[in-house]
Structure formats: structure tokens, C-alpha cells
């Protein structure tokens, strides 16, 4: 992974000194609140109703064990002893004191960490696939390109006051898109042209929030050396023409829509034609220099499915299940990618204690070359684990609580065993859960939807607590065929309520699209920050009914 040189260290040290200066002036009253606001945001510091929040950048999700330990220390010394993994591969502290933030940033800088541009109307942390560099279906390792973009976007003098925040994601996997590039302001997908040269397919103007949009492709193939000049052209067009009169219409997606993707692309191409051959054009040497930081760790020569693994899987059903669910294929024979799930029931999703951060550091050192990754599903990944050590790792992380998943999101489905396993059930439930998860496989989107309890029961015994799901699904038997009823508005919280039946039931193959329609009604009707349940309570069941049965 990337290691700072003198330039990086110098620039970061100057940034910390600058923010110390700014904080001192703000505390002395020389900087008005609205003047300090964008400065602190671009240093990761929010001031929320209850306390400040510091969002620490984890560039494209990569962490060394020493960095995890420093995060643990900082969360212990300056906060309440825990941190929070965000959906954009960053880490947040929830209770730092404003006056301590320069010291926190100085401590982080010692391990090459910072909070640069994790908020504010600027270019944010570039994200990518959490399995980058370790998976087998990758065209190229995307991380060097993310690092190149990180450097280019860091304190970019022209783009520090954009109309709105700006997020770039890079995907290099042929068959998956864990980076969700089409719902970013800029999505970059690596492609090779007929000659075998690397380039990027460029999506612009995707996004979630109030106006979810899949970004259109504005260029099918951008040669890799042109990456930065092309980004600069896109950002310049956005900076100059993006709306600044209404913050809900200020994202680039609105501009792309207003100009049409073709019209927008023309403007970008025109701008780019002036700067494409400038010194900002990348060189093969510059790319190779960054790539040299992302060389493979010292893998041993191993075989897939070693005896130790096969035997352990045969002997322990629980282990076997964990391997199936939380372990992914690795490009190197004999290695595996392991996801540590960070969502122990009763803990807010993504929250990790200082001790847990150290435990992740420990298992990273012991099992995965001292590196870990943060995923935008708010989990952690050990990307380079020997298959013959999976069982040991599993034993080690079980008591740490890293074996549950996706709490509180749409894909955190409460689901009874259903007709596959249970004699009482009228209908299967697990395949329904799975089909819905497949439909909503874009986790950024799911997190954007906020807290949604989706509970599925295979029969009226309601082991899946479907009545109290915000969305409840109940399997019913109609003349020997399995159908599913949907209820909305249930809650198991303090404001508990029983869900209201939406209407006639659906066949299993229709369930994913029905759930999607329900979610679309919510997204179109919600106000800022309004949760699914609140929107439902405000607008009632009728709009959902009308959509689903249209």
C-alpha cells in the first residue's frame, strides 16, 4: 500500500499547521462561524447538534495495522473509546472536542492519516472495491489510480469551493461493481481497448440522495494517461456551470441532466481539448511509480482447498457457513479474502471499540500481512488470508464479535428458516430474502435508504417478526403454491406498531420488483433525512399501494 515520501509528509504537516492556525482564529472569534465552516468541513469536522464529529479519511479503504492502532489510541484519548466505520470507507469519531482536533490530526499525520476533504463541497475520498488487488477477475489493480486521484484532488486550488460535494469511485473488476461507480458523481471503470491498452469508461452524474440517478456514460474509452486532465475538464465544467442557487439541485447529476449527457460530454470534450496535452497528462513512469507501492505481498506457493480447510469445513457446519458467506475467492491459489462483519446486535452498525480496532490490527498482523480494509458495507476485510489458516482466524474473530452482518439496513433481513428447513412453514423465506438482497446489491444505495427493517416470516407463527418490520413479508400457501403478503409501517422500537397489509399477495419471482417499487415511493417522497418509517407515517399507505398495484 502507498507509503508517504517527503513531499506527502511535508504537505500534510503544513495542512495540520494550517488547521491549527484556523482553529485558533475561530476560537478567538477572528473567524466567523460561516467562514470557519467550510474550513473545518474540509478537515473532516462536523459540528452536529450534540457534539462535533470528525470524519477521518481512509483512502480507498486501506489501513495498515499501525494505523488501526493509532485510530484506537485516538478514539480512546480524545473520544469515548469507539469509532464508526462509514459507508464511504472512512472512519468517524463521534465526540471529539473542537479544540483537540488539531492535536488529533497531528497524531494521525504521524501514521500518514488525515481528515482531508472528508466533508465540504470539494472532491471527497476516492473509493474503490474493497477486494482490489486480491480478486481474480480484475483488469488491473484500481488502487494506484485511486492514489493518483487522491494526490491530484488534495487541496486542488481550483476545486475547493464546488457547488456541492463530489465523489469519485473506481472499479476494475470485470464482473462485479462493489464500488458502485454508476451512482457516483464520477464513476471510472477500467477497460482495455482492442489494442489491449488500459483506459477508463467514464460515468458522470450518478447519485443517490433525493434524486437517485444512474450516471450516464460520457466517454466509452479514456486512455489512462489522460485520466487527470479529463477529470480536470469535468470538474471545471461543473465548477463553472453547476447550480449554486439551490443546494438540492447543485450536484453534478442535475447539470448533466439539464445539459443532457451528450451536451455535457461536448462541453467536457471542448474543455479537455485545451488541456489534454498539458504537463498534467500522466506519464507511464508516474503510474509505474505509484503501482510499485501496490505490489503483491510475499505470498507463499500454495494450493486451493488445502486438506486443513476441507476437513474443518466438513467438521463444522458453522465454520463452513462462515466460509461460504464471509470468505471470497482470491486470485492466488491457497489464499482467501475474509470479511469481518462489524455489526454485533445491539451496537449501531459500523461502530467499533478501541479494543476491537486493536483486535483487527492483531488479526491483520497475524493473518493478512498487516493490512486491513474498510468496506462501504461498514465491515472490515482481511484480503490476503491463507486458506489453511481460515479456521484459526475464524476461531480468533468469533469472540471478538466479527461474525454478524448488515444491521439495520434493508439487506439486514430478519428471516425465519422458512420452508427450506421448517416443518411449520407455509412458504420458503430464505430464497425471498436472497432475491431481495440480489435486487438491492448496491450497498451504497441501501445505506442511503437509511434504517429499514425488512422482516420475513414463512408462516403466521411469525418467527421472522414480520408484523414489526418496517417492511414485513409473510409467506402464505394458496392451493399448494407459495405467495407472499407485504405489510408496511411496523416497528419493534419504542414507537412500536403492527404493519398494515398492503394488499393481495405476490408470487416469489415478483418480490424483488415489488420491494423496489416500495423503496422508490419512499425515495421520491421523503424529505431530507426522513427515514422510511417516518415517510410512511407522513404519506400513508396509499402511494405505495398505487405504485405496487398499478
Amino acid at each position, binding site marked *: 500500500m502507498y507509503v508517504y515520501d517527503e*513531499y506527502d509528509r511535508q504537505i500534510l504537516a*503544513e495542512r495540520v499547521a494550517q488547521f491549527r492556525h484556523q482553529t485558533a482564529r475561530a476560537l478567538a472569534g477572528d473567524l466567523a462561524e460561516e467562514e470557519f465552516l467550510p474550513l473545518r468541513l474540509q478537515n473532516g469536522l462536523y459540528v452536529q447538534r450534540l457534539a462535533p464529529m470528525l470524519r477521518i479519511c481512509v483512502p480507498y479503504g486501506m489501513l495498515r495495522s499501525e494505523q488501526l492502532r493509532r485510530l484506537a489510541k485516538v478514539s480512546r484519548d480524545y473520544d469515548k473509546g469507539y469509532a464508526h466505520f462509514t459507508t464511504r470507507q472512512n472512519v468517524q469519531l463521534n465526540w471529539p472536542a473542537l479544540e483537540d482536533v488539531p492535536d488529533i490530526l497531528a497524531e494521525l499525520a504521524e501514521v500518514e492519516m488525515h481528515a482531508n476533504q472528508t466533508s465540504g463541497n470539494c472532491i471527497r475520498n476516492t473509493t474503490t472495491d474493497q477486494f482490489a488487488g486480491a480478486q481474480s477477475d480484475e483488469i488491473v489493480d484500481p488502487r494506484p489510480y485511486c492514489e493518483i486521484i487522491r494526490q491530484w484532488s488534495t*487541496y486542488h*486550488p*481550483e476545486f475547493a469551493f464546488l457547488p456541492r460535494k463530489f465523489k469519485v469511485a473506481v472499479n476494475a473488476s470485470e464482473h462485479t461493481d462493489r464500488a458502485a461507480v454508476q451512482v457516483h458523481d464520477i464513476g471510472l471503470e477500467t477497460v482495455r481497448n482492442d489494442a489491449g491498452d488500459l483506459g477508463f469508461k467514464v460515468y458522470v452524474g450518478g447519485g443517490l440522495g433525493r434524486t437517485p440517478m444512474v450516471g450516464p456514460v460520457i466517454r466509452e474509452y479514456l486512455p489512462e494517461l489522460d485520466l487527470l486532465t479529463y477529470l480536470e475538464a469535468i470538474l471545471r465544467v461543473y465548477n463553472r456551470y453547476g447550480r449554486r442557487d439551490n443546494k438540492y439541485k447543485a450536484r453534478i447529476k442535475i447539470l448533466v441532466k439539464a445539459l443532457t449527457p451528450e451536451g455535457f460530454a461536448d462541453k467536457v470534450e471542448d474543455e479537455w481539448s485545451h488541456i489534454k496535452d498539458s504537463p498534467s497528462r500522466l506519464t507511464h513512469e508516474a503510474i509505474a*511509480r505509484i503501482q510499485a507501492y501496490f505490489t503483491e505481498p510475499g505470498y507463499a506457493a500454495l494450493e486451493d482447498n488445502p486438506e486443513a480447510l476441507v476437513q474443518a469445513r466438513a467438521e463444522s457446519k458453522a465454520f463452513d457457513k462462515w466460509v461460504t458467506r464471509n470468505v471470497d475467492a482470491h486470485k492466488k491459489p491457497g489464499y482467501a479474502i475474509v470479511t469481518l462483519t462489524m455489526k454485533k446486535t445491539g451496537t449501531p452498525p459500523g461502530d467499533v471499540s478501541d479494543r476491537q480496532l486493536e483486535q483487527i490490527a492483531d488479526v491483520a498482523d497475524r493473518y493478512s500481512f498487516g493490512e486491513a480494509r474498510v468496506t462501504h458495507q461498514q465491515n472490515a476485510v482481511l484480503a490476503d488470508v491463507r486458506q489453511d489458516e481460515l479456521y484459526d482466524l475464524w476461531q480468533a474473530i468469533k469472540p471478538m464479535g466479527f461474525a454478524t452482518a448488515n444491521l439495520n439496513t434493508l439487506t439486514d433481513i430478519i428471516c425465519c428458516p422458512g420452508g427450506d428447513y421448517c416443518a411449520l412453514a407455509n412458504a420458503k423465506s430464505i430464497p425471498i430474502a436472497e432475491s431481495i438482497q440480489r435486487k438491492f446489491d448496491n450497498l451504497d444505495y441501501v445505506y442511503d435508504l437509511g434504517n429499514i427493517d425488512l422482516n420475513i416470516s414463512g408462516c403466521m407463527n411469525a418467527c421472522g417478526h414480520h408484523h414489526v418490520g418496517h417492511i414485513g413479508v409473510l409467506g402464505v400457501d394458496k392451493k399448494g403454491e407459495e405467495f407472499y403478503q407485504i405489510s408496511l409501517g411496523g416497528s419493534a422500537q419504542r414507537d412500536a406498531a403492527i404493519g398494515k397489509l398492503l394488499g393481495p399477495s405476490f408470487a416469489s419471482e415478483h418480490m424483488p420488483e415489488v420491494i423496489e417499487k416500495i423503496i422508490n415511493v419512499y425515495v421520491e417522497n421523503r424529505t431530507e433525512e426522513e427515514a422510511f418509517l417516518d415517510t410512511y407515517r407522513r404519506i400513508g399507505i396509499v402511494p405505495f399501494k398505487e405504485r405496487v398495484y398499478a
Partner: protein
Amino acid sequence: MPDIITSDGQIKADDWTVVPRPEEGEVLTLPEGRVLIPADMWLANRAQYPNKETVGVWLESHDEPGMLADAVDELSIIAVNFPKFTDGRGYSSARLLRERFGYEGELRAIGDVLLDQLQFMKRCGFDSYALRADKDIELAAHCLNFFSQAYQAATDTEEPLFRRRAL
């Protein structure tokens, strides 16, 4: 006479007066001394203002700097207004004037010009700054130089760091 700050941190007395755009239906009236007038009004009556030592122009943040593309040699000063410091369009305007249209005269930031944006402005090609009156101009030199290095090429740095590192 208010002071301005230059890129090398010098504080200078300023004798340019920014003339606001007249209200609809009113005519532009120029005060005594050196004046900066709206760029489009200057363009429309270029022949009237032959002396670039006494008349310069200013651009609003949404103005197209390209309107001055063939006039950059006729001007000794162009100002770009920042109506609010969070309106970042002026940074692009400055770079275009310098890098695209080859403007070499004085490029001044006016309007909501605060301390913490000075270095960004400098990097984009501004070389004088009408700091907002309530800000401490004595701090400006420090704020113009928070950073000794930059990753990107910009008006002040022809080569991005990845090329300089390669040396």
C-alpha cells in the same frame, strides 16, 4: 485609500475604484481616478476607454472570461469578483484568463476575499487581493504561503508533483 496585498505578501495602497454595475436604465458614471468597470460594459465601448492605466475591468463570478479573450493585451488589470467566498467560479475564471487566454497583466481578487483562500487564489493566477476590510491584512503573507508544495499543476506551478518527483 484601502490597502491591497500582493502575491509576495506586500501591502500596497490601492487606487483602483471598483465601479458597480449601474441599475437597469441608469448609465455608468465614473468617479475620479482609476476605475474598474464591468467587463461587458468596457467591451461594448472599448474605444471610449483607450487608456489601460486608468480603466480596467471586473468580471462577476458567472461571467464568461472568454469575453475578454481577444482583449487581454488591452488591459493592465482585470478583477474577478467573489460575491461570496464559497462561490468558487472565480478560481476557474482566473486560470482561464491566465492559461487559456494568455492574460499577463494584474489579476485581482475582489469581493468576499478572506485569508484562508488566498493561497488557492494565488495558485490560480491572481496576483493581487483586495482583502475584505475586517480581515487582518498582517496575516495575509502567512496565509498566502501555508503550503510549500502542491500536488497539482496550476497557474503558479507548471509541472505537477508527479513530474517533479520523477527528476
